[in-house]
């Protein structure tokens, strides 16, 4: 039996994984977070997180609704004060030197904060001025950033007339207007259609690759974290439950994923029977699906079906796959990343209503 099969060990295992970073003394980090906590009334939105982001890194912060992504982002960008813990951004303490932090960062929050009565250009010019650009610079920069995000044609239209995707892009332009070396993006592609999403991905990847901009990006999309981030922190209920490069995290699972659709009423029987499966590392169930972490690949399919046949459980469908970040999340938290299935649907072009954290 593997040690993580007893669920008691799971939190410890992932806590160790989460703390696994190499802090080099004297090295300048873009972001350093220690024991960060934020409590709202009786809600512990951020429950003590530690992480380090190196300069030039593309860091993903992946978690379901209400995990604490936005709260963390707001603390790191000086919009909220932490309840406990410390953080340094661009080398400055966020509580004692918020001014220096703000001078160093570009931020696009989850809600694109736009002045609907202003035109795109007017808003960017104002932001440039408030960022300390003078003379002809604000206009020059505004034009350049509008061009960068492909909004030159709409530049002189009021923001109230922009579509959701255009608003997101303008927000990104605003975050870049003063040429920051460190960029915070809170769910930059939520609510966008696949084409706009890919456009943002490409641009963010380019900024990181070609211009060396450090990116701290939150997302609830596995695919986004997987594609973009060099390292991912998976956050759930205010805690980091896994941390590492996507490849690393997936290989840590060291197993294939066998998914079996089983009638709800036979779930318990099925689960019991499958514990005898050779090569089983872990088993997770929800109402209509069993997820098995197995070694032995395709031979496990036959064995599993046989075991279920012996206890008279009919199997709806069987799927064997390599682990994704969803399984990493499942292993760490016992539940699938909320909306993982819908996300697939959304990627296929459908829209999904998002639960608002309020």
């Amino acid at each position, binding site marked *: 039996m593997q040690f993580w099969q007893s669920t008691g060990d799971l939190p410890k295992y992932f806590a160790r994984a989460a703390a696994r970073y190499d802090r080099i003394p004297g090295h300048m980090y873009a972001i350093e977070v220690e024991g960060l906590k934020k409590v709202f009334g009786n809600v512990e939105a951020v429950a003590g997180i530690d992480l380090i982001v190196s300069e030039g890194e593309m860091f993903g912060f992946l978690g379901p609704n209400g995990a604490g992504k936005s709260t963390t982002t707001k603390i790191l960008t000086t*919009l909220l004060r932490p309840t406990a813990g410390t953080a340094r951004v661009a080398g400055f303490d966020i509580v004692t030197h918020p001014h220096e932090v703000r001078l160093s960062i570009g931020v696009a929050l989850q809600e694109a904060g736009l002045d609907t009565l202003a035109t795109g250009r007017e808003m960017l010019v104002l932001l440039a001025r408030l960022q300390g650009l003078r003379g002809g610079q604000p206009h020059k920069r505004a034009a350049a950033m509008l061009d960068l995000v492909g909004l030159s044609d709409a530049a002189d239209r009021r923001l109230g007339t922009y579509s959701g995707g255009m608003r997101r892009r303008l927000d990104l332009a605003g975050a870049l207007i003063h040429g920051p070396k460190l960029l915070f993006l809170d769910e930059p592609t939520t609510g966008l259609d696949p084409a706009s999403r890919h456009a943002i991905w490409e641009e963010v990847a380019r900024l990181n690759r070609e211009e060396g901009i450090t990116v701290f990006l939150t997302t609830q999309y596995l695919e986004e974290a997987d594609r973009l981030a060099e390292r991912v922190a998976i956050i759930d209920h205010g805690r980091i439950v896994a941390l590492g490069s996507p490849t690393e995290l997936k290989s840590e699972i060291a197993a294939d994923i066998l998914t079996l659709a089983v009638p709800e009423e036979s779930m318990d029987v099925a689960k019991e029977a499958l514990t005898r499966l050779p090569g089983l590392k872990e088993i997770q169930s929800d109402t209509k699906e069993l997820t098995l972490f197995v070694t032995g690949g395709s031979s496990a399919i036959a064995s599993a079906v046989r075991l279920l046949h012996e206890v008279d459980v009919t199997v709806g469908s069987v799927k064997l796959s390599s682990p994704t970040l969803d399984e990493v999340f499942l292993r760490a938290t016992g539940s699938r990343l909320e909306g993982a299935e819908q996300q697939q649907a959304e990627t296929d072009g459908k829209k999904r209503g998002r639960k608002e954290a309020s």
Partner: protein
Amino acid sequence: MSVALAPHARTYRRETEFFRATYYVAMREIRNLIRTPAAFIPSFFIPLFFFFVQSGSLQRLAERSGQVTDYKAFVLPVAILFSVSNEGAGFNMVTDIERGYFDKLMLCPANRLAVLIGTVGANFAGVLFRSLIVTAIALATGLHFATGIAGILPMVFLASLWGLVFAGIAMAVAIKTANAQAVQGSIVFLFPLLFLTTSFAPREAMTGWLKVAVGYNPITYILEGMRSFSAYGFDATRIAKGVLAVLIMAPITMGLSIAALRGRLK
């Protein structure tokens, strides 16, 4: 295309940045004021309507009583004062907070107070402009202004300063609650105070508790200060009392909005 900025392109001078930020925030606020004519234009009609209806209906009666000589000059400050005591600054701030634009401003390196002062400043300018127009129209329709043309600006200025007191409350509630109803509620709650003054009759004509309450209401002193310019003729004591009322009240309500701003970060 590169987003990197040439090293010399951005010279952030903290000392001057506060004033620049205040100015740009104020200009944006004024621009938005002008771009919402549906809210801006009615704000002219309400004081004018009040002025004409009030003076039209009561002028004869009041002047015959012998206690006021020119009822129009007596009632104009009331019309202006009512119109400056509004929640406009708070409403706009609620909208900004709801849209996330306020956070955007808070993310800028400029001192956050600049956002508050810029908003208040723009509101002040708007109120001043509106009050001047209202006074000009009143003059054009036969009002006799006691201290002449030179007295108009100081009177309007005093009224607009009082507008800051209300703006401070509206903004404090706006920042604290981010709720338009709450902002409106706070002003509605204070509105009766405007009546507990000498707005419709001189203090000498009052009796009992009303007379006492009116004496404790700072708005009475603003109103009387304004009337020194429009109706009574220059009266340094009255004006000083009005200015004093603002000097006491404005820091209190502005302090409330600063406290609300601080609290927002918690």
